[in-house]
């Protein structure tokens, strides 16, 4: 059960036991983490699950593919190097403790 830690804008942290194979977005939405909407259900169609991956995990999570890259470019108000759509990050045991920061707004 890889844990995921969601850090809100005010610095508060919420730790959730995820399941390997689930996306970070689905883990957040199912547990009602505020600030991650996931309107399209994980189909790279809405960009409402944008997160900043914590620096310590950015390399392990990796970069977005082209389609996701386009979405981030267009839809996200404050894109950074660590921006990802959390629907495209699949949990693995290797990512246990994955920490992501929630942006101040979703499109």
């Amino acid at each position, binding site marked *: 059960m890889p844990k995921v830690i969601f850090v809100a804008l005010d610095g508060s942290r919420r730790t959730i036991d995820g*399941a390997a*194979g*689930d996306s970070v977005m*689905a883990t957040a*939405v*199912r*547990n*009602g983490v505020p600030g991650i909407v996931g*309107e*399209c*259900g994980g*189909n*790279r*169609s*809405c*960009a409402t699950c944008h997160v900043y991956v914590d620096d310590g995990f950015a390399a392990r999570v990796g970069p977005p593919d082209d*389609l996701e890259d*386009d*979405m981030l*470019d*267009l*839809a996200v108000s404050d894109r950074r190097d660590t921006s990802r759509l959390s629907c495209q990050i699949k949990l693995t045991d290797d990512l246990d403790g994955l920490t992501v920061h929630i942006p101040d707004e979703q*499109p």
Partner: protein
Amino acid sequence: MTALIVGASQAGVQLATSLRDHGYTAPIVLVGAEAHAPYQRPPLSKQFLSGAADLASLELRTAGFYAERGIDVIRGERVTHVALSGSGRRGAGIALTDGGRAISFDRLALTVGARPRRLDVPGADLEGVCYLRDIDDAARLRAHLTRAQEVVVVGGGFIGLEAAAVARAAGRTVTVVEAAGRLIPRSVAPMVSEFFRQAHTRRGTGVRLGSGVAAIQGWQGRVSGVRLLDGTLLTADLVVVGVGVVPRTELAEQLGLACDGGIVVDEYARTSEPSIVAAGDCTVLPHPLAGGGRVRLESMPNAIAQARVAAATLAGDPRPYTEVPWFWSDQYDLKLQIAGVAHGYDQIVVRGDPGAERFSVLYYRRGQLQAITAVNWPADYLAVRRALAGGTPLAPDRAAASDTP
């Protein structure tokens, strides 16, 4: 002040959640006819059907979430009767379920969805004729698909084409039969229909347009073929029917609510009895992009947006529906994204190259941008969706220029 929400799918769950977000502290009861915990439907014809996703991964919320938010979820019981009290608070009443339960409510929301339209031809009840609406349908179809060799898909709409793509990708022989002269005729321009016909054909899926079904043929109770109106027999051991849906308006009719191809609601999700709200596939709503008429938007984004509006209305903080309709469909490696309403347009602008399977079509009415369909081009889709949402004009000649982002 119990709020009763009838229908525990995307709209119902969103309505319950949003009510709590609005600070509604009274009991919320969410009743769903299906035995499963509320789940996402869009993947049923995509990742779930192909085996890439399981039921657990489709759950909308955890059991802990409902408990924490004080949302009482009743599963496996269908509300069969509902009536408002003759006296007392406006909008209060009682509902009865087929499980023998009586639920008193002070507020009522209908998020009852739609049922798949049945094929009304001889043989339609044979084993091997499948529909695709809920998780049980999808599981049944998935099981059939593992054994089937020849699949006929009746209906060239989104459900049919997505199911065809999954079946073809699994190596089956697949033929799509569509009664109209083109695919997905109600949602996209003819050239987009033609693109999808060619894209399916290129991948080995047969497409027969202008073909009505006369009968399903069987042998020993099982499907053996599909007889078309022109006499052609297509052999098949699996038939997938995707010929649209019928909104569930029975409860609304019991309540005397106006229905017209769905439960009629206004931009605040209020039915003709304003104390009762409705949201999702069961409704028809007014939309500025629909040219003043009402539309039924059968989509998850609409279910969510309209449920939020309905919750705000119930919570006494009404806000009109402003969401630009949007939708997507995955077929093979093609991602189709639609924003706006492509009805009543008089001009289209094509960007990109359909031959390269990456292009977009913008729809205009009297020079006014109305909608986009984009294939494998999310950037265009998002730009237009934003322009529509912000009311930004995007002139046809500018859109046609390839260097316009």
